[in-house]
C-alpha cells in the first residue's frame, strides 16, 4: 500500500462517514432531505477518488473509459427519467428495479475481475471467495428483484406461482450454483464454471420470488436490498476497494434491520414469507369470502357519510392499501381540507404497515401536501380515538381488524389502530372482501360502523361534493 493508496483509503473513510451521517439524519422528516444530500455528497467523493485512483494506478485504455462513460450516461438517463416520472404508488417497484441493477452491476464487476485473472495459474482464496459470493448474491438479487418488481407492478400475477416439484427444482438449482462455486475455489480459473454459477443463481432468484404473494413483495424487496448491499461489499473485497466494502456493509445491515422491522410490524416471520403462505396478493385470495351475508351490515350513501362528517367535531382518517390502489391521496386530502376549513379537527391515523410498504401512507399523504404533524403514528392515534366522533376508514382492513386482539388468527398480536374505540366508524371500500391477510373483519359488522361501498377515489370525491352542500347550506 503506497502513501497514495493510503490517502485514497482515507478519503473513502470520509465518504463512508458522510453516508452514515446522511442515514442518521433520516431519523427526522425535517432533516431527512438534507441527509440524503449529504449521502449523495459522500457518493461524489467516493466516485471522484476512485477515478483519480484508477487513472493513477492503472491508467487503462480509451476503449474501457469510453465504455464506462457511455454506459454511465445511458444508465444515469434511465435512472433519472424513471425517478422523475414514477407514480408515488409505484415506489416499491422502482426501488426493486434499482436493487436489480445494483445487484447486476456488482455481479458484473466481480465477473470482470475474474476475467482479468483468467490468465493467472491460480487466484488467492481472499479474491476468489468474494468473487464467487458476489456473483451468487448479485445474480440472485438481479433476477429476484425483477420478478418482485413485476409482481408489484402486476405484470406478473401476485398469486404465488408454484408448480409440482418447484421446491425440488429450487433445491437442485441451489446445489448446482453452490457446487460450481466451491469447485471454482479449488480448480484453476475456469470461466465456464463461473458462467454456471451465474446462470444457476439467476434461475434461483426467479424460483425464490415466484412463490411469494404480491403483498409480501415489499418485504422481499427490503430483503433483496440487504443482499445487494452484501454483494457490493463482496465486490469490494474482490477488487480491494474500501468504499464498496463500507457502503455495502452499511446497506446490508440496514436492509436486514428494516426487513425484520417490516416482518415484525406485519407479525410474520421472514422465513414464513420466503416459503410463501398467506398474503397471496390482494382481493384474489378471498374470492371465496364473497358469500358474506350482508344482514348485519349497515350500508351508507355518500350523503349519509357527508352528514356524519359535517356535524362531527373530531375526525380521524385511517387510510390503507385501498387508498394507494385507488390513488385517492389527493381526494382524501381535499376532503380533509374542506372539513378543516369548516372548523372540524381532522387528523390522519397512520399504521406503520398500512399499504404495501412501511410508511407507504405517509409518503402518499405527503405527496398530497398533508402537513406532517397531522399524521398521527400508531400510539398517538390510539390515544386520540377515544374522543373521536367519526373514524373514516379508507381502503384499510387488516390494520384496523379488532380480531388482532384475539389469538389464533392470521393477524393475532399485530398492533392495530383502535378504530373500534371511536364513537362512530365509516368504512370506504368496494365490497366485503377481505384484505391482505385474507380474513374477515368484525369491525365491518360492528353496530356503530357504517359501510360505504365504493372505489376510494370515486367515493371520496362524492362525499366531498355532498359535504360541500351541508357546509355551504
Amino acid at each position, binding site marked *: *500500500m503506497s502513501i497514495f493508496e493510503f490517502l485514497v483509503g482515507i478519503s473513502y473513510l470520509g465518504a463512508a462517514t458522510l*453516508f452514515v451521517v*446522511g*442515514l442518521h439524519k*433520516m431519523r427526522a*422528516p425535517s432533516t*431527512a*432531505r438534507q441527509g*440524503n444530500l449529504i*449521502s*449523495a455528497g459522500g*457518493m461524489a467523493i*467516493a*466516485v471522484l477518488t476512485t477515478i483519480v485512483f*484508477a487513472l493513477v494506478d*492503472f491508467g*487503462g485504455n480509451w476503449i*474501457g*473509459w469510453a*465504455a*464506462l462513460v457511455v454506459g*454511465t*450516461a*445511458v*444508465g444515469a438517463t434511465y*435512472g*433519472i427519467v424513471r*425517478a*422523475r416520472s*414514477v407514480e*408515488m404508488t409505484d*415506489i416499491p417497484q422502482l426501488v426493486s428495479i*434499482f436493487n436489480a*441493477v445494483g445487484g447486476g*452491476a456488482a455481479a458484473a*464487476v466481480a465477473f470482470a475481475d475474474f*476475467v482479468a485473472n483468467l490468465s493467472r495459474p491460480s487466484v488467492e482464496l481472499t479474491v476468489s471467495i468474494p468473487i464467487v459470493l458476489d456473483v451468487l448474491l448479485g445474480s440472485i438479487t438481479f433476477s429476484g428483484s425483477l420478478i418482485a418488481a413485476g409482481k408489484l407492478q402486476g405484470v406478473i400475477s401476485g398469486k404465488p406461482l408454484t408448480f409440482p416439484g418447484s421446491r425440488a427444482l429450487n433445491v437442485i438449482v441451489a446445489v448446482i450454483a453452490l457446487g460450481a462455486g466451491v469447485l471454482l475455489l479449488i480448480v484453476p480459473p475456469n470461466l465456464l464454471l463461473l458462467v454456471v454459477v451465474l446462470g444457476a443463481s439467476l434461475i434461483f432468484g426467479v424460483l425464490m420470488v415466484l412463490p411469494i404473494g404480491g403483498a409480501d413483495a415489499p418485504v422481499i424487496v427490503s430483503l433483496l*436490498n440487504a443482499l445487494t448491499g452484501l454483494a457490493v*461489499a463482496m465486490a469490494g473485497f474482490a*477488487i480491494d476497494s474500501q468504499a*464498496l466494502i463500507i*457502503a*455495502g456493509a*452499511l*446497506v446490508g*445491515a*440496514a436492509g436486514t434491520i*428494516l426487513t425484520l*422491522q417490516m416482518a415484525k*410490524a406485519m407479525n410474520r416471520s421472514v422465513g414464513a414469507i420466503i416459503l410463501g403462505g398467506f398474503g397471496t396478493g390482494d382481493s384474489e385470495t378471498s374470492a371465496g369470502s364473497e358469500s358474506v351475508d350482508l344482514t348485519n351490515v349497515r350500508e351508507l350513501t355518500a350523503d349519509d357519510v357527508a352528514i356524519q362528517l359535517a356535524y362531527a367535531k373530531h375526525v380521524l382518517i385511517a387510510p390503507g392499501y385501498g387508498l394507494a390502489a385507488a390513488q385517492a391521496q389527493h381526494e382524501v386530502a381535499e376532503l380533509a381540507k374542506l372539513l378543516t376549513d369548516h372548523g372540524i379537527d381532522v387528523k390522519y391515523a*397512520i399504521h*406503520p404497515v398500512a399499504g404495501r*410498504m412501511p*410508511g407507504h401512507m*405517509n409518503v402518499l399523504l*405527503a405527496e398530497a*401536501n398533508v402537513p*406532517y*404533524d397531522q399524521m398521527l403514528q400508531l400510539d*398517538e392515534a390510539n390515544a386520540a380515538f377515544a374522543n373521536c366522533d367519526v373514524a373514516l376508514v379508507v381502503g384499510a382492513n387488516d390494520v384496523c381488524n379488532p380480531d388482532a386482539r384475539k389469538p389464533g388468527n392470521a393477524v393475532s398480536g399485530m398492533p392495530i389502530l383502535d378504530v373500534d374505540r371511536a364513537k362512530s366508524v365509516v368504512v370506504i371500500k368496494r365490497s366485503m372482501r377481505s384484505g391482505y391477510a385474507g380474513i374477515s373483519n368484525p369491525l365491518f359488522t360492528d353496530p356503530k360502523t357504517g359501510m360505504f361501498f365504493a372505489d376510494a377515489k370515486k367515493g371520496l370525491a362524492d362525499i366531498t361534493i355532498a359535504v360541500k352542500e351541508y357546509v355551504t347550506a
Partner: protein
Amino acid sequence: MIETLFGNLAIFILSLLVGVEVISKIPSTLHTPMMSAANAIHGVVIAGAIVIASVANSPAAYVLTFIAAVLAAANVFGGYFVTDRMLRMFTRPHATPQDATEKVES
C-alpha cells in the same frame, strides 16, 4: 496481503455494526424513503465499474464494463433522485414533542 484482508474484514464488520445502529431508530414514517436511500448508497458499486474500466483490456472486459456502468449508474442516479423527490414532500417540520403532548391532552 493478510494485512489488507484483516483491514478489510475489520472495516466490513464495523460497518455492519454502524449500519445496524444507525437504522434501528428510524421512525416507520420514513421507512420507505430510508429504504430508497440505502438503495441509492449501494449504487457505490459504480466505483467498482470505474476500477474494472481502468483495467479492461479485452472485448469481454469492455462489454462487462459497459454493462456494469449502465446498471450502476441507473442505481446511483435513480436512487438519489427518487429519494430526494420523496423527501421534498415531507416539507413540514416534525411535530415537536410538545405538540405531541398537546395532541394527546386535547
